[in-house]
């Protein structure tokens, strides 16, 4: 193990390390903790310039209550879910198939199609912006959740294909050959042999895509406009305009908006990290 395990070092080093851990964490998360502190303060603290002292009263319930019952925030959150969940299902379903096709079959254009998915996944969003916005307008899907979902599915298929294909490549190929000898059709091999083995990859990708799509801001701004279809990342700017200078409410709103992917990360940590670091180890 590198660096040298701390247990094998002098007692003084161990104590220093144990003391530094929480300090470093406090420093690292400082800006975020500040927002959390803001979100439980009463409005009066800000007019009295009591920014960093103790809250003069604990108003967490009131502030978060305002966010949930007196603003469009629940609407935005619901939109975010209605955009994110179908995207996850769609992108994972499509990429299970493309990943299977590129991972199992040998045909001449295989590697070029694979590279096309990879390259497309890296292009700057701006080069897609005008044509995608036009296409969405023409389909009559501008300012709808469906329009956003369709684009997200298509774009995420690039990354998901890269992921699935590499995962399937690492599966034992003998399984598929054995099934073929038995005369099982290709579709059944996909459904009954390969898909059950892909469960960990599906879990990892789902968590990752959930986070990516939940946190998307650019496409939300380009393809949607009002509270009826905007997800929370775009909605929070209107929210902040509504509560201008009410820092306690803006802070509470930010925390609420950030929470779902955070919860997802903590619940599915193992899958999340497995997905993120695929390929980081040989």
């Amino acid at each position, binding site marked *: *193990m*590198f660096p040298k*395990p*701390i*247990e094998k070092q002098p007692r003084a080093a161990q104590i220093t390390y*144990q003391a530094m*851990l929480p300090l470093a*964490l406090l420093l690292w*998360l400082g*800006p*975020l903790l*500040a*927002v959390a502190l*803001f979100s439980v303060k009463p409005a009066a603290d800000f007019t009295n310039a009591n920014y*960093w002292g103790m809250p003069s009263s604990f108003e967490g319930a009131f502030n978060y209550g305002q966010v949930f019952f007196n603003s469009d925030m629940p609407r935005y959150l619901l939109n975010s879910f209605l955009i994110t969940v179908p995207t996850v299902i769609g992108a994972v379903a499509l*990429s299970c198939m*493309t990943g299977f*096709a*590129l991972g*199992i079959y040998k*045909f001449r254009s295989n*590697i070029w199609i694979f*590279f096309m*998915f990879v*390259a*497309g996944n*890296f*292009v*700057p*969003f*701006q*080069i897609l*912006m*005008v*044509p*995608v916005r036009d*296409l969405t307008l023409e389909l009559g899907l501008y300012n709808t959740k469906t329009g956003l979902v*369709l684009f997200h*599915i*298509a774009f995420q298929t690039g990354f998901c*294909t890269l992921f699935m294909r590499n995962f399937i490549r690492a599966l034992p190929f003998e399984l598929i050959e054995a099934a073929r000898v038995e005369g099982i*059709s*290709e*579709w059944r091999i996909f459904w009954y042999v390969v898909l059950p083995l892909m469960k960990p990859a599906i879990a990892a990708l789902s968590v990752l895509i959930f986070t990516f799509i939940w*946190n998307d801001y*650019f496409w939300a*701004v*380009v393809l949607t406009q009002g509270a009826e279809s905007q997800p929370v*990342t775009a909605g929070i*700017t209107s929210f902040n305009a509504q509560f201008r200078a009410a820092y306690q409410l803006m*802070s509470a709103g*930010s925390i609420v908006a*950030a929470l779902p*992917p955070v919860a*997802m*990360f903590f619940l599915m940590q193992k899958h999340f*990290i497995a997905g993120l*670091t695929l390929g980081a*180890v*040989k």
Partner: protein
Amino acid sequence: MTAAVDAPEQESWFHRNQQRIAPWLFLAPGLLFFMVYVIIPVFQSFNLSLYEWDGLGAAEYVGFRNYENLYWELYDRDAFYISLKNNLIWLILYLAAIPAGLFIALFLNQTVWGIRLYKSLFFFPFVISQVVVGLVFTWFYDPTFGLLNEFLGFFGLGPLNVLGDERFVTYGIIFAGLWPQTAYCMILYLTGLNAVDPEQIEAGRLDGAKSWRMLWHIILPQLRPATFIAFVVTIIGALRSFDLISIMTQGGPFGSSRVLAYYMFEVALSEYGFRMGYGAAIAVILFLIMLCFIAYFLWSMYREEKGH
């Protein structure tokens, strides 16, 4: 009766060619989506950059005039080159996330009590949306109550209006961006460190290699795959920087924090009217910059594939 005779005939044709047809059937839906929404739009943007178009009326073919206007900055003074320069600053400074992530990973790669929770909490900034990161850092930099100025005031310095000062604004935003990016690199390195061969470390220790030499000669070579991915995601992240700029400064003050990605958005969908062709030209330039890196990534992947 004929149907019963025909059916096995057809089935057997499909059966015989199944392994050639199957991949295309599996690819069809994903490929179709990806073509329509990603690949074709890239070419459409190239085409559009040769036109002048307000998004509503008829598009007028203008050849390379959009590019000439960019080159001479005829429309917006001090916009294109400042954006380009800022993109370069982003590209270079964003790479600091890689050594910073490695440093934190080395710091956390221990097995003391509760370390798992520490690792998760250090990873936290990557999970929250860039919009929230932008808001958090806007308040962090705030000249009246921001933590930064509280801190500077402690040493008798400041106040400093980071986001309102043309000299500091881009660096301030990049610093905010480094926060989640460092967390990402950290997690890549933590996974990489987990897989480092313990025997080599022991051998190095027996040879009396000191920490730094050990890191450089034994650990880092084994972390190469992690470094490669960290490099890829950091470069892409730097060139995609849009959310933070949009939230923190909207390109200001006086356009001094714009990057090409933001400038393009502003031109194509601003309140001052839509200049789609001109925007497309900016997007094409950004795309060409990215293409250099994409080509390099694909080249590395290609060599890797051949190696197997």
